[in-house]
């Protein structure tokens, strides 16, 4: 019942075209994709290191999912809008969110960390599935703005929402599918099936592929190799183009693997063997793209050295930036609960600030 995920690149870097994944690789800045994937991985590994040093409370690693995220993100126009889960550091990177700002949530200095409107990249959502409905609502807004199906490439836009395989089981996610389908909304659901929801293997959620879910709601589902950045890019580009032009939603399943524990707090030795991990390490998405680019002489050692230097710079910026993230002011929660602070809350704030001041 479950078909093989579609791919364009073999692990050794051979490009094989696919009817279902239209792409002209010559038109793609593949080196940029590689750079984004490398930088993304560095953000991730630096954050893990910062967590180990006690600078972050927790970090959800994306190791192994770089192709899925960078591929999906590469399909976006600036005016498209993204709703992430808590693991889309690669998408954030591609959208231009300062990676230092990704750390605040996990350092405990903020609940958000960036202005969602600045890069059309919304805040991380920790409640599984909740963001799928926000994406649907935003897409309804796009329809009402008349920014769909106009044929004007400067105007049409769509929403890309990320979710995990576990999120497929939440009622809210399925309601999002209902709304998107019934109203033919410009929204693309991008599910990274990394095969685990913390300790639950995908079999706890379902016996059929993620992509198949869409059929039940009457829209298109497509299953791609999530470790193949070109496959992810092609599928998402097609889906976003369809959404922008008024042809409704798509569910993309990027079949991949969460190579690290769920978060730095998780102990995955309790529920899975390293052997599985070895297999997926051998399917590393960065190596795959590198093999392709080196094999076809699209990049050289110079390029890789330059990216290596950039990485280094980024790492230093992250470390310094993390430590420099300002603690929130004690009045922060009070000032940001309502547009205007109610009297009783102001009293509470005054009481609180007096405690804080007296060091009590």
């Amino acid at each position: 019942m479950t078909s093989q995920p579609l791919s364009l690149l073999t692990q050794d870097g051979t490009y094989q075209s696919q009817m279902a994944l239209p792409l002209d690789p010559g038109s793609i800045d593949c080196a940029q994709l590689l750079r984004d994937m490398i930088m993304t991985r560095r953000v991730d590994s630096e954050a893990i290191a910062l967590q180990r040093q006690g600078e972050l409370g927790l970090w959800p690693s994306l190791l192994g999912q770089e192709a899925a995220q960078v591929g999906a993100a590469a399909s976006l126009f600036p005016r498209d809008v993204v709703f992430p889960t808590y693991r889309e550091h690669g998408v954030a990177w591609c959208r231009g969110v300062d990676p230092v700002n990704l750390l605040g949530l996990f350092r405990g200095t903020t609940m958000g960390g960036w202005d969602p409107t600045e890069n059309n990249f919304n805040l991380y959502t920790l409640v599984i599935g909740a963001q799928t409905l926000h994406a649907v609502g935003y897409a309804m807004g796009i329809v009402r703005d008349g920014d769909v199906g106009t044929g004007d490439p400067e105007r049409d836009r769509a929403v890309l929402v990320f979710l995990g395989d576990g999120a497929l089981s939440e009622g809210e996610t399925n309601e999002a599918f209902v709304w998107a389908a019934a109203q033919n909304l410009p929204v693309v659901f991008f599910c990274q099936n990394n095969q685990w929801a913390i300790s639950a293997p995908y079999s706890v959620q379902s016996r059929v592929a993620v992509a198949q879910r869409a059929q039940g709601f009457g829209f298109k589902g497509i299953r791609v190799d999530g470790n193949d950045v070109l496959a992810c890019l092609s599928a998402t580009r097609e889906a976003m183009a369809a959404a922008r032009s008024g042809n409704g939603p798509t569910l993309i399943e990027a079949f991949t693997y969460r190579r690290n524990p769920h978060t730095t707090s998780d102990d995955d030795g309790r529920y899975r063997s390293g052997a599985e991990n070895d297999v997926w390490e051998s399917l590393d998405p960065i190596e795959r793209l590198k093999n392709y680019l080196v094999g076809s002489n699209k990049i050289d050692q110079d390029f890789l050295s330059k990216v290596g230097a950039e990485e280094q710079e980024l790492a230093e910026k992250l470390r310094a930036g993390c430590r420099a993230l300002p603690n929130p002011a004690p009045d922060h929660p009070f000032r940001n609960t309502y547009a205007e602070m109610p009297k009783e809350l102001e009293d509470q704030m005054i009481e609180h600030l007096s405690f804080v001041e007296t060091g009590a």
Partner: protein
Amino acid sequence: MTAQPSTMPIAHALNAGLRDAMESDDKVMLLGEDIGQLGGVFRVTDGLQKGFGDLRVVDAPLGEAGIVGSAIGLAMAGYRPVCEIQFDGFVFPAMNQITTQLAKYRHRSDGKISLPVVIRIPVGGGIGAIEHHSESPEAYFAHTAGLKVVTPSSPQEAYDMIRAAVRCDDPVIFLEPKRNYWLKGEVDLSRIPGPLEKASIVRPGEDLTLVAYGALLPVARKVADVCAEEGRNVEVIDLRSLSPIDDETILRSVERTGRLVVAHEASRSVGLGSEIASRVQDAIFHSLEAPVIRVTGYDTPYPASRLEEEWLPGLDRILDAIDRSFSY
């Protein structure tokens, strides 16, 4: 729109308020089950889809999480959605979106993002309905920081408050006392709505303060009438805003009267009455001549409708509480 006050029931006043809001801001839109051609089961949105089209008045799929969740997304996209939950008992599938998303988003975004979403809910009992159609869920919302919770008690208040709620940049839970939907009153359609969060003294008095809201307001007025005959001047306060609570108005009143009774339909434990009692005894301990007494629904599920008349706090139970207050 006419400048002449006209007489209409609460349901029509809400309809007029929504229509005004939609006319004056084309980002205002409505979302809910059966709100289009049917005009809602209580007809509050009657004619609005016809007037504003089905992109602005949306018949939603049957899912409350979807209604509130997509309203959040719409608000992020610059709209001001007004959701209708068909009955009080059906708001619970939306609780996750309301408490973990809607209420917290301003805080999460460090104050950068407002979610001006209104959630209208017909509430309360007394209409002979079946299960889940007579609930009073205000305490869940009033406990949730980040939400405003308001309830009108008259056609004028309904008209004013719904317009103010739509204009409010915070999420507003707008509770409509369903058994009084057809209660008529004068409505001045040219009135500029006042602040949402003020309580109002609807009948001044010196001997005891009676705080009520929504459907119990007419009962509270009647209580005051009966007391007046007995020579007791009861000051009746319409709470209007259940979160935030207008402490000032209540405290100044109780400082004068020394006695306070709070009435609501919702179950007693951990309800609005508890909150008001708790605040008042703390703020003006020495002004109280008697304990604050709550007259409320009991701590049971809402009963079968054959029992509701007796189960609901009514004239006699409130009068009894007042007697008890004076017995101190």
